[in-house]
């Protein structure tokens, strides 16, 4: 570990690691995108996209409502890519694959500062209206009154509880430093389906990147909604070049 303390002061409050989220709800969609432009989008982090199919990378879009947790209540939108563990050889196997968080707008100041300071997560402030109460889950991200992205996730079939990824590595890159964060999840009330996502992109740079990956025309591989999720985020560790 070494470089990162497990205690931080954020806006006068002591935040102790691991950070615990006691109640969150999520909707997400995964897309298969061409690997070459995806590689270019995340090149700044020095990480390699995972290619579960030759020439295809996986981009994941998710929106999250944090109701009860150590970073306070807030809404978040995430753009992530599945990446190989640094130094791991190219393989089709998904074992050891992590999630590189490319963009992570949030709508509250406390989590903005905590996320950037503690883990180097690429958080920025946005308006993130969200409706998770209906069968179709909807979210939009707006910055300066302009819509960056809108995502709707249609209902799937219930999965037995206990399924899903219990622990994965989240990667982030801020100011040229790439970090890895242990991220544990315990979902319940999970519904999943093939396809099921509707996406609309605005004119923000990130929207342009996603359009460059063909996301405005793509059918989702799968869509997932999680009614109740608890999570833990460990301290971040720097990943060597």
């Amino acid at each position, binding site marked *: 570990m070494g470089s990162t303390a497990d205690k931080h002061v954020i806006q006068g409050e002591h935040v102790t690691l691991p950070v615990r989220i006691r109640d969150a709800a999520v909707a997400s969609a995964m897309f298969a995108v061409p690997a070459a432009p995806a590689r270019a989008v995340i090149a700044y982090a020095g990480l390699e996209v995972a290619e579960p199919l030759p020439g295809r990378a996986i981009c994941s879009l998710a929106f999250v*409502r944090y109701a*009860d947790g150590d970073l*306070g*209540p807030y*809404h978040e939108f995430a753009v992530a890519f599945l990446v190989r563990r640094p130094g791991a050889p190219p393989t089709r196997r998904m074992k050891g694959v992590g999630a590189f968080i490319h963009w992570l707008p949030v709508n*509250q100041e406390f989590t903005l500062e905590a996320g950037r300071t503690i883990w180097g997560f690429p958080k920025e402030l946005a308006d993130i209206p969200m409706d998770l*109460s209906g069968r179709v889950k909807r979210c939009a991200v707006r910055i300066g009154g302009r819509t960056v992205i809108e995502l709707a996730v249609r209902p799937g079939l219930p999965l037995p509880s206990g399924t899903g990824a219990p622990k994965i590595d989240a990667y982030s890159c801020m100011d040229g430093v790439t970090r890895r964060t242990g991220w544990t999840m315990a979902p319940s009330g999970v519904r999943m389906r093939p396809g099921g996502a509707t996406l609309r992109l605005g004119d923000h740079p990130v929207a342009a990147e996603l359009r460059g990956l063909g996301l405005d025309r793509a059918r989702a591989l799968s869509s997932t909604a999680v*009614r109740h999720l608890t999570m833990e985020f460990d301290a971040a560790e720097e990943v060597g070049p």
Partner: protein
Amino acid sequence: MTREVRTALVTGAAGGLGALAAQRLAAAAWDVVAVDLDAAGLARTAARSPNLHTRVCDVTDPAAVERVAAEAGPVQRVVHAAAISPLGAALEQPLADVERVLRVDYLGTVHVARATMPGMLDRGRGELILFSSLAAWVPGYLTAAYASAKAAVNAFAEALYQETAGRGVTIRCVCPRQVDTPMYRRIAAEHPAATGGMQGMPPGLVLDAVDRSLARPAADLFVFPDRLTRTTVTAKRLLPAATRRVIGLRTAPPDGRADRSP
């Protein structure tokens, strides 16, 4: 940011449904005034949430409720979740307890509505969400005081709706079955028979049902948050005697007249 900040007033916000309602609204960037008697619980609800403001206030005190509402300014949504539910036999529960339940659950509702409705009616918009209970529709053993107070809330909501319909304020009277909150878990542990061994429904599902209900016509006053709640209310309407008997059997003490093995 050019967004319009909306204000919500949430009572009973130190725990359970009220706390989750306050946190969800805060997450959605509302300005939230969270009200409860329990200052420590309020502080937990509001931790690391600068847009969640806490006010210690007893809803049985009309002047105190009036003050909190005045300080909150123009509110768009009122979520009134403050309530107590001590159980006791109809002929034996201490009168002081009966009176307390009526003061908190029924008069508290009257005070909150009187402090907030006039402003919302003046502005021609707003949402008043009152928490009642399935017990108001199907009282069981030991719920005489609680079910009576919640039935009074139902009647109050209906009369208020009649008097204010068409003026832009949506009223919802939410009647869930048992909800998995710290309060319910305490009561279920104390009175396993009277609560029928029922596991409470997750509070998040109750709040989802409330959110969905706001898209329905104003006249859709009552919210029954899950299928079991809806089925029970329908059964009570269509088959009152049979439903009463089933509820009696399910909530009777093991040594009671409606004998049921534990």
